């Protein structure tokens, strides 16, 4: 993650020459700081430097903050879900290593997004919402392991589609786009692992990749999460027709996006009233 490049994509939205000077001098100071190592961990960045950047309320920046806060909301959901799962004891002992790793990634994503939103873009990171993972008493993920796994799969596959759907909305910032892509593929790795774990346990027949728009043995409430995944056409090319490869396999080879409203519709099932 190259914060220098990120700062370069942001312009101070201020008419004050003093503010502008301060912004650029801070950016230069930051640039020097960055010379010590290309991969500066965000946690290691002195907040005094970042906090001094003036308002960056440019339309682009406001839009980036909006997208990243949306991502942060989803990461809050995922992190809280895995933390509660690990705390509850519902996860079978040999599988804990898997969910500890996933939990660690989701927590890292939460902190990373908070840092970028709050201290790089000078926005306000959204607070963690209250969650109801029973979805109004319909699920018991923290006392029933198959349910825990089912919702985990649902969240990860949703996360993949959510990030994919925002790629175009952050493409004006190379660094934010690259960071989003780098989270996106981690979510896809999680999804693949959880899907295959469910099948290994005889709970489903799903593979690591999504076949057609199938929900497998997940509850019907997850239909919206997989709707559209059966798509075979990309850029106007029907790949099944082009190649003669069966539609199921072609559908598996491309994951599909969801837009913000679709994802928030899914996530809202798990928000506490």
């Amino acid at each position, binding site marked *: *993650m190259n914060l220098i490049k990120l700062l370069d994509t942001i312009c101070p939205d201020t008419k004050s020459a003093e503010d502008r000077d301060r912004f650029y001098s801070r950016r230069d100071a930051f640039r020097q700081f960055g010379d010590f190592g290309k*991969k500066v*961990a*965000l*946690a290691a960045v002195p907040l005094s430097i970042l906090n001094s950047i003036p308002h960056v309320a440019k339309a682009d920046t406001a839009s980036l903050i909006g997208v990243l806060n949306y991502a942060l909301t989803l990461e809050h959901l995922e992190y809280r879900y895995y933390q509660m799962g690990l705390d509850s004891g519902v996860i079978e002992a*040999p*599988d804990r*290593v*898997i969910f500890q*790793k*996933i939990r*660690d*990634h*989701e927590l*890292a*994503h939460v*902190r*990373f997004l908070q840092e970028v939103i709050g201290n790089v873009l000078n926005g306000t990171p959204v607070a963690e919402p209250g969650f109801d993972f029973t979805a109004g008493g319909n699920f018991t993920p923290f006392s029933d392991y198959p349910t825990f796994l089912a919702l985990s799969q649902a969240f990860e596959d949703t996360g993949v589609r959510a990030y*994919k759907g925002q*790629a*175009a909305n952050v*493409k004006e910032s*190379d*660094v934010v*786009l*690259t*960071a989003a*892509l*780098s*989270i*996106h*593929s*981690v*979510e*896809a*790795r*999680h*999804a*693949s*692992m959880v899907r295959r774990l469910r099948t290994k346990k005889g709970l489903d027949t799903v*593979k*690591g*990749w999504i076949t057609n728009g199938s929900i497998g043995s997940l509850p019907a409430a997850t239909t919206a999460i997989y709707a559209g995944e059966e798509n075979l056409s*990309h*850029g*106007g*090319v029907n*790949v099944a027709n*082009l*190649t003669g*490869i*069966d539609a199921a*396999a*072609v559908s*598996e*080879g*491309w*994951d*599909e*996006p969801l837009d913000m409203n679709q994802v928030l519709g899914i996530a809202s099932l798990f928000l506490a009233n």
Partner: protein
Amino acid sequence: MINLKHTKMKNELIKPQGLVKNANRRQFLRMGTMTVAGAGLLLIGCNNDDDMVPAMPGMVSLGTGDIGILNYAYALEQLEAAFYAEVIKGSYFANASAEEKTIMGDLEKHERAHREFFKAALGTNAIGALEVDFSSIDFSSRTSVLGAAKTFEDLGVAAYNGAGQFLESADLLLIAGKIVSVEARHAAAIRDLINPGSADFAGDDIIDSNGLERTLNFTQVLTAASTYVKTEIDFSQLPS
């Protein structure tokens, strides 16, 4: 900067000596060869034909701009598709478990579909078929096949993640995004076959403390791929 990214693969990736020669060759080719207008499918409207450099025999040039990035992806998908085509003909596959047969069979189809998609999307701008070299892989050995599959899948993810920022077209960015997450699904599955039930599916070797997967640039990716590709790939005109 661009000149430093020139092209000699294998062990001579960065070789300032070769630059002058290459520039001359390019000019020569530009004068002596008529470039072919792009007629790819739908997504690629117009491109800078003037900048397209015809390849020398035994060498391919990825080209410029979005077409260059698509050719880059096409090259990687060619490599992956060729690999799995060999896998399913080999004795590891013949004797593999049902689960591993399903996975390898799926991956062969997915990568072939990706390859054919890019070829069609690029139309006349597509690079030719790469000559691959899998002599370092033992297709009768599970360890060797899975190790190579892990290399290819992880490399593919890092390549797409690194290249996304250079795409101008939002439509192409979305398509790349649709493919990269499937490559990541593959990578996680292969890693789990190698070390089942562990955290390796998303290991610390490829994911940093911010939870971000590694990205690799063109030079890193093509250097890694060069072990398996005989064809010389000129990526000097890719965006930077």
